[in-house]
């Protein structure tokens, strides 16, 4: 070992001494150092996930079960009352977590598959492929998103599948731009050239050489995009073009019960009913943002501790 006996290197010294921690240990250490906002976000997300996963067990009534009394007040059998056709609001909130979040998650995953994949291809190939894809994205982004989505939904109909596909495609433009721009700086690295010289095929270079090096910004973007998709779906449902009844969904629940706000002077709780699904949407968005902020701060190398 001529090298290590003759020359000193701080990196090598640290390398020798560093405890080899398992991934789980690292996560535990990072969590212990996380700020309160991140903890808050993580707990809220965990709670939402729990509710979404065990919705049928948690909900007191069925998703579309109709009771005789419509617009029932809070309390008694129906914790948050019933809606205009007599469905239990509390149960629909619980099922709504599952539907709204599930669809948003599927849409975000889809948009990352499309946008991320094409972004990597554009970054690696360069030249005409890159030009063609990038300009196509420019065109798509030039059209106002929500209006374009409304138009496409009117053409293809508001099924859940078309909802997911349309929002995923429209949203993938932003993922494409991000992926391409971070991948471009990795593509020029010598190790990517080394892989090309070795004769590696495109998928291998994408998956093994580039993707691991651009994960942090992509994960953060995933959180943010999830929030936006979630809000877009809620907005579309509020407009009546999103998730269709009888499927429970927070956006359409706000719309269905919106008129109850007018009764605030007679029954405050009735006026609060449409606020609950709206609040659920807001809370999740804030929670995801807190976690993303913390994650970005950790991975961007910003260190303001000393």
């Amino acid at each position, binding site marked *: 070992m001529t*090298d290590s006996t*003759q020359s000193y290197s701080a990196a*090598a010294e640290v*390398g020798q001494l560093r405890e080899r921690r398992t991934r789980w240990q690292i996560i535990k250490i990072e969590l212990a150092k996380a700020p309160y906002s991140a903890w808050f976000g993580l707990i809220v997300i965990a709670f939402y996930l729990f509710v979404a996963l065990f919705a049928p067990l948690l909900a007191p009534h069925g998703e579309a079960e109709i009771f005789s009394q419509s617009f029932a007040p809070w309390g008694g059998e129906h914790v948050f009352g019933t809606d205009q056709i007599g469905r239990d609001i509390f149960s629909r909130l619980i099922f709504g977590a599952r539907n709204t979040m599930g669809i948003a998650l599927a849409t975000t995953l889809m948009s990352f598959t499309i946008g991320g994949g094409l972004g990597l291809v554009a970054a690696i190939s360069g030249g005409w492929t890159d030009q063609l894809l990038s300009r196509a994205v420019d065109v798509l982004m030039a059209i106002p998103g929500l209006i374009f989505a409304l138009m496409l939904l009117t053409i293809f109909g508001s099924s859940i599948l078309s909802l997911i596909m349309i929002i995923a495609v429209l949203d993938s433009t932003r993922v494409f731009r991000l992926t391409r721009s971070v991948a471009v700086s990795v593509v020029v690295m010598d190790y990517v050239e080394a892989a090309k010289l070795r*004769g590696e095929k495109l998928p291998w270079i994408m998956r093994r050489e580039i993707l691991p090096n651009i994960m942090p910004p992509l994960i953060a973007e995933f959180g943010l995009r999830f929030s936006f998709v979630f809000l877009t779906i809620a907005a579309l449902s509020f407009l009546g073009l999103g998730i269709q009844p009888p499927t429970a969904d927070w956006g359409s629940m706000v719309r269905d019960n919106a008129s109850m706000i007018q009764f605030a002077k007679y029954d405050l709780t009735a006026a609060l009913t449409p606020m609950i699904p709206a609040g659920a949407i807001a809370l999740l968005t804030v929670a995801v943002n807190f976690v993303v902020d913390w994650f970005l701060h950790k991975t961007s190398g910003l260190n303001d501790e000393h």
Partner: protein
Amino acid sequence: MSTKRGKKGDVLLEMKDVKVDGFSDERWHKIIKGIDITLHRGEVMGLIGESGAGKSTLGLAAMGFTKPGCKITSGSIIFDGQDLVLASDEEKRALWGTRIAYVAQSAAASFNPAHRLLDQTVEASLNQGLQPRAAAEADARDLYGQLQLPDPENIGDRYPHQVSGGQLQRMMTAMAMSPRPDLIIFDEPTTALDVTTQVEVLVAMREIVEKFNTAALYITHDLAVVAQMADVIKVLRYGNEVEEAETRQMLESPKEDYTKSLWSVRALEKTESPSDDVVLSIDNVDAAYGGGVKVLHDVSIRIPRGRTVAVVGESGSGKSTTARVITGLLPPMTGSVQFNGEPLPAALKDRTKDQLQRIQMIYQSADTAMNPRQTIAETIGRPLEFYHGLTGKAKQERILELLEMIELDQSFYDRFPNELSGGQKQRVCIARALAADPEIIICDEVTSALDQIVQEGILKLLLRLQKDYNITYLFITHDIAVVQAISDEIVVMYQGAVVEQGGKNEIMSPPYPDYTQLLLNSVPDMDPDWLTNLVEARG
């Protein structure tokens, strides 16, 4: 200006028992472990040592400054009667830039690309109200002239990207000089430059420092350079002082073993052994990037089997482009590449796996040549799996064998690149090339980012591997000492064309073509009079 200036010989900077700690990986490490420096007015002190020796940290500490995450823990730094350790930020700010200036390694990264050079040159003088703008600008133009910059009247109107690297480095010296500081800290100012440019910058810096009686700390790892610049040399290692002596005395009779080992690197030399068995040849190649200006003109090179052909020339001479033509990354416009007597497809995608496997490449910067998210085992293991289909136990054994070949032990197996030193990383890159079982390895400036001692280790390793496995090297470099150490044949390139090709002894002995002459005598010797003699000889 002359009122604040004492006469030559007064003590300007006195650092006593300075210690600096740095915070990383959740704990404090000692970077400087108690060093004294006494610097007189007009004196130039060279600080040398390998990377990690604490040279730059010490240089910054001389200004009373530490990088974020570092702190001066004890000692005193007296600059012209004022203790910089105790001085407030405001007091230090008044000194920095005007009485103490700093010249960084990378000039390109140190200039603001959005401002003209002249405005940046006079900024420090104006901020402190030392001179009116017109006078400062006139003075800056005068400095440009003294630093041998072309068109000194107008060059200041250009932006940083409009001048070359060597010019930018001189520009930074002008910027440092503008307020006529008492002390300049040069932090590896010529490391990023070609040998031919380096000479110009060194001459300019030395003259101007002498003329204004400025004291300087000159930080470098290049002994021959420090021999030209410094009156006194201090050798550092692990944050400790090894020894300090006058330049001549240090060069003639270094006391410590460590200093002697630094000196010995340049003694490495390979005896030339000619061969006629050509493994790879390039015939009459012309090449251009994107159909634009031609960067290679009628280049023909033949590479004998089991030997080392060194390609030398300054940057922009087409050395790396030649490598790209051989590897297929840049298909030539005309001409061909023959491998074992058979023509090689021009483009990378037309080559077979077998052809790819036989030509491997090692890069200048091992940092960017290794994927930071792959362990050493994955890095070395991939070619084994890809070319030879090795998996599981067989692959693991071969990886350990390769680690042994590059003189690293098993503990490196599952480490990541950021846990390795520069020399160790370059060794792993060598192992990755070896894993493919190549006939020829293209080495693109593989030692130029490394310290002398580490460099020696890598060169010895390459020579041993060549002897053991009969590997052929195409060795691209601008360092003549490295050429001496490793090559059998030399190709001299200039502006995209081959100036000369032949055996090492033939090329290295006169008569030389003009360009070879310039290249050879731009390489600093370990003789402190070398630069003076060179300037006289060149007139």
